[in-house]
């Protein structure tokens, strides 16, 4: 091989190497690009066939007003829906029946707890009352999906409401499948959270009941000094009944109940 031929071969080899490097660089850029897309857009629109309709947001806007209204009504009656029947264990105060959560018909005795699981009972009552509206909202969500051209399958609706620190949770157990243009999304259920301090009010009411049943009274000033956002109103009636209204000064929510404990006869 002459000196000139040798140079030609070297030149060809160099050209092939430059091509390989270029290919490697392109492949690397593509890989980095894919990684960046995956990281920067983890929730690609393709992954949600529902497009701009967020089921949780939609359900929240649908249930919120009615839920708050129902909570307000029930909370004024210690979480009970039926307080107007003759056997509802209530007392009439300013034209309204207030539910007793602790009661004794005797003088000089502390009351007996009438409802030890206040929160759970309230949740059951609220779930029963609210189930129709909850179902209606889910049906409305289905209709909205269909109006936007989605094919929706909804298999039964079960809903429940629970109080948690800081919120009220409406939990739907409602398997739903949403399809459009080959994209399918399956939901097992939905959890709709609505801000509320009702949980705290119920737990403080439970504590007041504990004092009532143990000591016959409770010192509301101490509660209010421990919890700055709390307001408690205690009204004593002539038969020894006390009407408690526990409220949150920030959210304006309140929980009301009656107790008759350690009362004295006149004279």
């Amino acid at each position, binding site marked *: 091989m002459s000196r000139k031929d040798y140079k030609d071969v070297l030149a060809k080899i160099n050209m092939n190497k430059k091509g390989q490097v270029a290919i490697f660089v392109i492949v690397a850029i593509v890989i980095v690009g894919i990684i960046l897309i995956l990281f920067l857009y983890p929730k690609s629109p393709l992954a949600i066939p529902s497009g701009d309709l967020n089921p949780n947001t939609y359900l929240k806007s649908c249930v919120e007003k009615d839920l708050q209204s129902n909570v307000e009504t029930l909370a004024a009656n210690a979480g009970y829906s039926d307080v107007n029947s003759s056997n509802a264990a209530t007392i009439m105060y300013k034209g309204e029946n207030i539910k007793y959560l602790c009661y004794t018909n005797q003088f000089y005795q502390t009351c007996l707890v009438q409802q030890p*699981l206040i929160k759970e009972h309230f949740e059951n009552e609220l779930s029963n009352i609210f189930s129709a509206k909850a179902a209606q909202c889910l049906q409305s969500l289905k209709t909205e999906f269909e109006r936007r051209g989605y094919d929706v399958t909804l298999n039964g609706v079960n809903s429940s409401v629970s109080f948690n620190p800081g919120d009220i949770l409406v939990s739907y157990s409602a398997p739903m499948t949403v399809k459009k243009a080959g994209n399918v999304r399956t939901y097992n259920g939905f959890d709709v959270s609505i801000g509320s301090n009702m949980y705290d009010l119920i737990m403080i009411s439970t504590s007041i009941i504990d004092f009532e049943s143990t000591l016959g009274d409770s010192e509301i000033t101490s509660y209010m000094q421990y919890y700055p956002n709390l307001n408690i109103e205690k009204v004593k009636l002539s038969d020894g009944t006390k009407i408690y209204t526990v409220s949150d000064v920030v959210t304006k929510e309140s929980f009301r109940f009656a107790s008759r404990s350690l009362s004295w006869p006149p004279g």
Partner: protein
Amino acid sequence: MINKKMIFLISAFVLITFMSFNVHADDPNVCCEKTITGFYCQNAPQSQCDTSNGLRVANTACDSTSYCKTGTCFNSLQGTCLSNTPQNVCNNNGGTWSLLSPQSCNLGCCILGDQASFVSLTRCKYLSGQLGLSTNFNKGITDETQCILQVQNQDQGACVYSSDYQTTCKFTTRAECSTGINGTTSKGTFFKDKLCTAPELETNCAWSKQTSCRPGKDGVYFLDTCGNFANVYDSSKIPSGTNLNESGEAVQDYWTNVKTVDESCNPGSSNANSKSCGNCDYLSGSYCRASSVVNVNANYGDYVCADLNCASTSAGPKKHGESWCDYSNTGKPGTGINAVGSKFFKHICENGEEIVEPCADYRQEECIQSSINTSSGSFSQAACRVNRWQDCNSQTNKDDCTNTDVRDCTWLSGIELTSTSSNGGACVPKNAPGLNFWNSTTATSTCSQGSYTCTVTMEKGLLGGETCKSGCECLDSTWKQQRIDVCESLGDCGPKVNWIGDAGYTAGYNLTTK
């Protein structure tokens, strides 16, 4: 010749009552599992028992039955316990009943990040789960104060860790940083007393103008861009240029190191409604609230120190948490002469509002008040307390009568309670109890204790005229008023006025001379 002239002076004060609760002499009390009015486990006449749906009735007291025996009801979901709960009420509602308080109701110290709660283990698990924290329960601490001290002594600072290939930060306790952040197993590096915005930590958290209320703290706090709490809101600490505020002062240190309340803006003041300083002080009457709630806007952020004090109450300006007594009825409280229908009231200043808490009707409770001196002036506290008037009339000397450890009575010197006593005074309730005189017969017997017969002996002179020999005090003009005072102090007896000052339709007493 001694001529005896008997003078019978009888004061009778009659206010008729009936029993407030109907007595069913022919219908003895039984244990109703549920009454027809819906109450569980009440000792009541059989006619008041609900016997539908298999509800039981027992010819014994409820405590003697198995289903109405009272004990502790444990809520296994929330970890709460309620005592004095009937067995059937507890079990039927999903609780777990036991005669004695179960082990699961024992309290301990639950550490929840930088907060602590003195609760049961089950409740601690629930609260920890809700906050996304691992359960940290110390059953060895049996005192709430000690529990609170546990978290006050905790180190706090910046916890730097990696998340999604970024160096980020959480402002938390050393314990959470070393055991697992946000309830996970990932751990970080802890920098005591450093903020997540400290430049040397090189995290992705930067300062911001956002503010928020911080759990367990009184004031308004800055938030960084990662949502962590920084120092107390102070509008002069907002960086304008590089590490300088609008006045050209260095602010980097404020965004690097944790500052105490005393090192923050305007310490020792309530800073109520301040637009520039969020150093609220609960004891001085201010607390962090949303601007929308108090209608005061801060220079930056949506929270301010709300004014909790009461500028104007029925007793003048009062501080948040102050309480005081009120007896705004006619009558003279503390002297035994209280108006019919009157009662005591406790007033409370809370969150800028005056709350009125009535004490029990029939003056079965009285309001007591005291005050303490603080650096910012007097602080009054009041309470409704049981009126211990019941054994006043049986006390025969002043020391026993005025022993405030056991009773609430007052000693009327020189007056005898009955015509047969000679104690040199009468012991009567300091605040006379109210009587259900319109609906009970007990008022008659109570008021009749005030009836008094005074025998005056007169001696006729030889030339006419009479001289008083004994019982002469009964002829004094003040005697009648003294008997009226004794009578009124027994209850709603005598010529009392009602709580709005109106007199009764009759004199309220009879004075007979024989």
